[in-house]
C-alpha cells in the first residue's frame, strides 16, 4: 500500500482550548507493525480516530504514498480496518450475526461474505462460539471477535487501539501472535498499547507521544539504542559495601531494587572491567544491559515518570 505519512497533524476538540494533538509527524512503513506508545491522555486514541475518519477538523496532512488518505479511502472504501479499544459489536447478537452484519454493511455478500467470515473465524479461532451471543463471551473471546470484525475486508491499513486490554495471558499471547502474523504483505499496521513489553515484542517501529507531541519515533532497534554509557546489572548477591562506595565515586552507581544497579561507564571496555570486578567480588551478574535501553526505561525517561490520569 505504501507508507503512511502524517505531517504536522494538530487537533483540539470544539469548545476546548486544550490541544490534543500538536503538530504530530510520523512515518509509518508498510512492512511491519508500528507501535504507538503514550500515557493516558497522550492523544493515541484521538490520532487513531482521525485516521479512521471518526473525528473531523484536524489540521495537517495525512497521505499514503503521497496521496491524501481521504482520497485513498474514497477510491477504496474498505481499505482501512479499525479494531477499537472498546469491544465494538452488538452484545445481543451472536458472533456469527455480528460478523455477517459488519461484513454486510461493508458491502460483502454471498460467497465472498461466507468466505471472509470463515477466514476471520479461523484466524481468530472463535469457531466454537459462533452461535453464542457476543455479550456473553469471556474478555478474551470478545477481543478475538473484535479483531475478527476488523479483519473482515482484508484491510491494507489496520488500526489496533489497545486490542489486548483486559484479557488473560493466554489470550494475550494468542492475540499478539495473530497480530504479528498479519505484518508484511504491504500492510500498514498501527498498534497502540499501554504494555511496553507487547510493543517491544511485536513492533518493528515505534513512537512515543505525550501531551499530543511525538517525543521519539523510528525503528525500534534505533530508538532503544543507548549511547550514554549506561550499564545496568542484576547480580546474584548485593555488592560489598566497600566496592559499592568505590563505584559510587567512579561510576555514579545507583541501586535500583535488590542487587540491581545502574552505572555510567566511559566505554565497552570499562563495562567489561566492571563485570569482572563484580565476579571477583562473588557477585555473579545474572542480567547485563549495555548500549541499549528497554522501552519502559525510555518511556519513563521521556515522559518524566509522572503519573497521569
Amino acid at each position, binding site marked *: 500500500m505504501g507508507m503512511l505519512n502524517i505531517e504536522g497533524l494538530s487537533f483540539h476538540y470544539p469548545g476546548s482550548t486544550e490541544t490534543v494533538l500538536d503538530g504530530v509527524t510520523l512515518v509509518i512503513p508498510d512492512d511491519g507493525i508500528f507501535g504507538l506508545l503514550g500515557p493516558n491522555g497522550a492523544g493515541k486514541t484521538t490520532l487513531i480516530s482521525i485516521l479512521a475518519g471518526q473525528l473531523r477538523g484536524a489540521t495537517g496532512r495525512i497521505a499514503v504514498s503521497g496521496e491524501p488518505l481521504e482520497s485513498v479511502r474514497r477510491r477504496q*472504501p*474498505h481499505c482501512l480496518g479499525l479494531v477499537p479499544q*472498546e469491544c465494538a459489536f452488538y452484545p445481543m447478537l451472536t458472533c456469527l450475526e455480528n460478523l455477517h*452484519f*459488519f461484513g*454486510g454493511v461493508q*458491502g460483502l455478500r454471498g460467497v465472498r461474505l461466507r468466505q471472509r467470515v470463515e477466514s476471520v473465524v479461523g484466524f481468530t479461532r472463535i469457531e466454537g462460539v459462533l452461535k453464542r451471543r457476543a455479550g456473553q463471551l469471556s474478555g478474551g473471546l470478545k477481543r478475538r471477535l473484535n479483531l475478527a470484525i476488523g479483519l473482515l475486508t482484508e484491510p491494507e491499513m489496520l488500526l489496533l487501539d489497545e486490542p489486548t486490554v483486559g484479557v488473560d495471558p493466554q489470550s494475550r499471547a494468542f492475540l499478539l501472535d495473530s497480530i504479528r502474523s498479519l505484518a508484511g504483505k504491504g500492510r500498514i499496521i498501527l498498534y497502540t498499547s499501554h504494555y511496553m513489553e507487547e510493543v517491544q515484542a511485536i513492533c518493528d517501529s515505534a513512537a512515543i507521544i505525550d501531551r499530543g507531541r511525538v517525543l521519539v519515533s523510528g525503528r525500534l532497534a534505533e530508538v532503544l539504542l543507548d549511547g550514554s554509557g549506561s550499564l545496568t546489572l542484576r547480580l546474584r548477591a548485593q555488592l560489598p559495601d566497600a566496592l559499592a562506595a568505590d563505584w559510587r565515586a567512579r561510576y555514579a552507581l545507583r541501586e535500583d531494587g535488590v542487587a540491581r544497579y545502574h552505572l555510567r561507564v566511559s566505554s565497552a571496555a570499562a563495562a567489561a572491567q566492571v563485570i569482572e570486578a563484580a565476579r571477583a567480588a562473588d557477585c555473579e551478574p545474572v542480567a547485563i544491559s549495555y548500549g541499549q535501553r528497554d522501552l519502559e526505561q525510555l518511556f519513563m525517561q521521556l515522559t518524566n515518570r509522572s503519573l497521569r490520569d
Partner: protein
Amino acid sequence: MHRLLAMWKKEWLALARDVHGLAVLFVMPAAFIVIMSLALSDAFKADTGHQTDFAVLAADGSNLAERLARRLEGDGFRAAPAPDDEAAARAGVRQGKPGLVLLVPRAFERGLREPPDRTNPSQALTLLADPALPPAQLAVFQHRVLGMVLGLRVSAAARISGIADDTGAFDLKRAATLSIEVVGNPRAGRPSSVQQNVPAWLIFGMFFVVMPISSLFIVERREGTLARLASQQVPFSLLLLGKVVPFFVVNLGQAALMLLAGRTLVPWLGGEQLALPARWDLLAAVAASTSLAAIGWGLLVAVCARTMEQATVIGGVGNILAAAMGGIMVPRFVMPDTMQAWVDLSPMAWALDGFHAVILRQGGVLDILAPCLKLLLLAAVLFAATLWAHHRRRI
C-alpha cells in the same frame, strides 16, 4: 441495498431480543386499550346502565312526592323511597343513599299557578346532592327538575285558560319526538368507548418507539459500534434509514394488533366490539404519518440523549406529557376551553384527529389531510434536527 438489508436484519434481531422494548410497544398499549375501554364503557353509552337514586320529599305529603318522582325518573335516574324528614334526607345524601333528594316546599302546587317569584317560599325548591356525584350528572338532574316544573307551570296555565284539563298535560319528556343520529358513525347510536380508546392508546403506543430506538442507539454509541461503522464509511443517513423501516413496520404491526384487540379482546372481556372503518387506505395513511413522526421523535431523542436515564426522561416523560395534553388520557371534550386551546400543540392530538376522522366519522381524504400533513411536516423537521444534532456531535 445489501447494506440496508444488513441494517434492517440487525435492527430486527436486536428488537426481537429486547423483551422490555417489545412489552412497551405491544403489551402496554393493548393493556391500556382493554382497561380504558372497559373502565369508560359506561361513560360513552347513552343508557349507561348505571342508575343514580333520587328521592322527593314534599311538605304537602307523599302523594305529591310520588307524582313528582314519577315525572323525574328514567334516563339513568331511579326513584328511591322518600325519607321521613329533611334531617333524614340530609343524613342519607351525606352517605350517598340516595345521591339526590329534592325538597318540595309547602303549597308548591298552588305556587305553580302564580307568576314566578323568587321571594315566594312556595316556589323555592332545594336539591340535596351527594358531593361524589359527577357534576355533569348533577347538572342533568337539575335541568330535569326545571323542565318538570316548567311542564307543570304550562299545564297549570293551560288548565286555567281551559286549553287542557290535565295537570300533567305538558310533560317535557313528551314535548317532542327526538331521536339522536351520530353522523358518520359506522354503528347505530353513539360511538363506544372502545372506538374512542383504540386510536388514543394506539397513538400512545406508537410514539413509544422512542424507547427501543434510543436504547439500541445508546448501546451502539456506548459499545463503540457507531464509531466503528463511521470508520467503515457507513453514512449516518444509511444508519437512520436502517432504523426507520423496521420501526415503521413495527408501528403498522401495532396498529393492526391494537385494532384486533379492540375487535376481539375487549368484547371477549365484556366490553363492546370495535366497529371497523370503511376506508382502510385512509387508516393506513394516518397510521403511516403518525409512525414517521413517532420515529423522527425517537431518533432525535436517541441522538441527543447520552444515557438511558436521559432517554427515559426525555422520551418517556415527553410522551406522557404529550398524551396528557393531546387528549389521549383525558378526552379533549372534557377539558375547559383554555386547556383545549393547548391541545393542538401536541402531535398526538393531530394523530388522534386523523384516526377519529377515519374510525369515528368515516371521513374522506380531505378530513385526514390536515392532520397527516402536520404529522409529516413534523417528521421532516425531526429528521433534519436529528442529522443536525449528529453532525454537531461528530464535530
